[in-house]
C-alpha cells in the first residue's frame, strides 16, 4: 500500500492529524471573541476550558468521569465476555451453534436503546440499568466477529495442525485463536464505539451521576459551557478507546503485513 501513497517527510507525520482540529478551534474562538456568535448560544473554547478547570477543582468532573468510566468498563467486560464465549463456542461446536445462533441473531436485531423504558422500570436509574444496556450493545459485535474470525481460519492450516500431531488444545491456542484474532479486534473496535454511544444515550435519559447527567443538569441551568465540555469529553474518551484498540492491533498483529513494520503509523 505504501508505494501507492504520496511520500511525506516523516517528521510531519505526527503534526498533520492536528492541523484541522487546531484550525477549527481557532476559528471557533475567533468568532466568539469578535461577538459574531453569542456566547449564550455557543461558548468559546476558552470558556469551555474554564468550565473544565472549575469543575475539576470542585471535584464534580472527576466524580462524573469515574461514574461513567466504571459503567462503560463493567458493561464492556460483561457483554464482551459473553459475546466472546458464545463466539468461540458456536465457532467450534455445531450443536451449540444450532441451539443458540438464531436466537442471538434475533435479539441482535432489536435496537438495544429501545429497551430504555423497560430498563428504567426494571433497574431504576442506578448503575445496573446502564451496565445492562452497555453489555447488550457490545455483546453482538464481539460475538459476530469472533464467530466470523473462527470460521474464516484457513482450513488448510487446521489440516496441517492435524498432520503435525497438534492436540485439540494446541490447535486452538496455536492455530484457531491467532487466526481469528484480526477479526476479533475489529469487533472490539466496533464494540468500544457502541459502548460510549449507549452510555451517552442512557445517561442523558436517566441518571443521577455521570457525564451524561452532568450535561443534562447543566442544560437546565443553561450552563452551555458545561454542556459543550461534556460533548468534548465524549469525543476525547472515544478517541482514547480507539487509540487503545489500535495499540492492541499493532502489538498483537505484528505478524500481519497490514500492521507490521512496513505499514508503520499508516494503520487506519
Amino acid at each position, binding site marked *: 500500500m505504501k508505494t501507492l501513497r504520496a511520500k511525506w517527510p516523516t517528521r510531519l507525520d505526527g503534526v498533520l492529524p492536528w492541523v484541522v482540529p487546531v484550525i477549527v478551534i481557532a476559528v471557533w474562538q475567533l468568532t466568539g471573541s469578535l461577538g459574531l456568535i453569542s456566547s449564550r448560544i455557543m461558548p468559546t473554547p476558552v470558556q469551555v476550558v474554564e468550565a473544565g478547570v472549575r469543575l475539576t477543582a470542585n471535584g464534580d468532573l472527576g466524580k462524573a468521569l469515574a461514574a461513567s468510566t466504571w459503567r462503560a468498563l463493567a458493561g464492556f467486560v460483561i457483554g464482551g465476555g459473553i459475546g466472546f464465549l458464545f463466539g468461540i463456542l458456536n465457532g467450534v461446536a455445531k450443536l451449540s451453534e444450532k441451539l443458540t445462533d438464531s436466537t442471538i441473531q434475533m435479539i441482535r436485531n432489536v435496537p438495544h436503546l429501545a429497551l430504555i423504558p423497560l430498563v428504567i422500570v426494571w433497574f431504576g436509574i442506578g448503575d445496573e440499568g446502564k451496565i445492562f444496556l452497555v453489555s447488550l450493545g457490545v455483546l453482538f459485535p464481539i460475538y459476530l466477529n469472533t464467530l466470523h474470525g473462527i470460521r474464516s481460519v484457513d482450513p488448510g492450516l487446521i489440516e496441517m495442525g492435524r*498432520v503435525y*500431531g497438534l492436540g485439540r488444545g494446541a490447535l486452538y491456542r496455536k492455530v484457531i485463536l491467532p487466526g481469528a484474532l484480526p477479526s476479533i479486534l475489529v469487533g472490539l473496535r466496533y464494540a468500544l464505539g457502541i459502548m460510549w454511544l449507549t452510555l451517552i444515550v442512557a445517561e442523558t435519559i436517566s441518571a443521577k451521576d455521570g457525564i451524561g447527567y452532568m450535561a443534562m443538569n447543566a442544560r437546565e441551568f443553561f450552563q452551555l459551557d458545561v454542556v459543550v465540555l461534556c460533548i468534548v469529553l465524549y469525543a476525547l474518551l472515544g478517541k482514547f478507546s480507539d487509540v487503545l484498540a489500535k495499540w492492541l492491533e499493532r502489538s498483537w498483529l505484528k505478524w500481519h503485513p497490514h500492521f507490521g513494520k512496513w505499514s508503520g503509523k499508516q494503520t487506519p
Partner: protein
Amino acid sequence: MASAFWKVEREADPVTEGAGRGISIELAGVEKSFGNGLTVLKSLNLSVRAGEFVAVVGRSGCGKSTLLRLIAGLDRISGGSLRRDGKEASGVDPATRVMFQDSRLLPWQTVLDNVRLGAIGLTRKEAEERAREALRLVGLESKENDWPSVLSGGQRQRVALARALVGNPRLLLLDEPLGALDALTRIEMQRLIERIWLQQGFTALLVTHDVSEAVALADRVILIENGTVALDLAITLARPREKDNGFAWFEKRILDRVLEPDALPGKTAEMQFEI
C-alpha cells in the same frame, strides 16, 4: 543462491543405505469412495519399499492426491488394506510428514517457531536446536526470526520442508509441493529435496502433474488412471540426473501412455501437463 543446492553428491545406493530409517507402504485392493457415491480409487495395489522415492503422476482428478491423503491418514480407506511399516494404518502417524502445495506456515509465528511445530514432544530448547538445524539444512538459518509473510514463495516452501524434516520423518509425502513455484526455484527445490532424501534415507512419495519432475526425482513413477495403477515404471537413470537421451526416453514413455487416446474414451487427448 548458495551453490550447494546445485550440487548433488552421489552416494551409495540410497535404498539399501537408508534401510532402517524409511518405512515401507503396502496398499492392497484399496478403494476410496465419498459420501456422494463418487468412487475415486478402486482395487489399487501399490507397494513402496523402505527408503524408495516414488512419484505418482496422472491427470487432474485422477485420485492421486486422494491416494496421498489416505497414506497420510487424513482420510480413511473405504475398502482393502493399507499398511505402513507392516502395520495396518489408522489415522495420522508421527513418523509421517506431509508437505502441501501451499506452504501452510502459521503467519503469526516466526520462521523458527513454525519449524519447531514439527518437533513435537521435545523440550523447548531441544526443539529450537533441532529447528535451527533443519533451517540450516534448507539454507534459511538467517531467516529464523522473520515472519513468513516477508519470505518469497520458494523460501516458504523451504521452511515447510524444514518443518517436515525436523521430526526426522520416516515417510515424507509431497503433495505437488513445487507446483506454485517458478521454473528456476523449482529446479533448485528438486535438487534440495533429492540431496536431503539421499542424506536421510526416508521413504518419499511425490504427487505431481509434472512428468519431468517425476523422472528427475523418482526411483519409480506410478501412473494413476481411472482410480487404479495404469503404469509402474522404474527409472533406472543414475543420479544426479542429466536431461539427456535416457531422461527424454523415460519422459516420452510416460507421456505417451498418459496421452493414449483409448485411455480416455469419447475424449480427445488434451494436454493437462506442464512439461
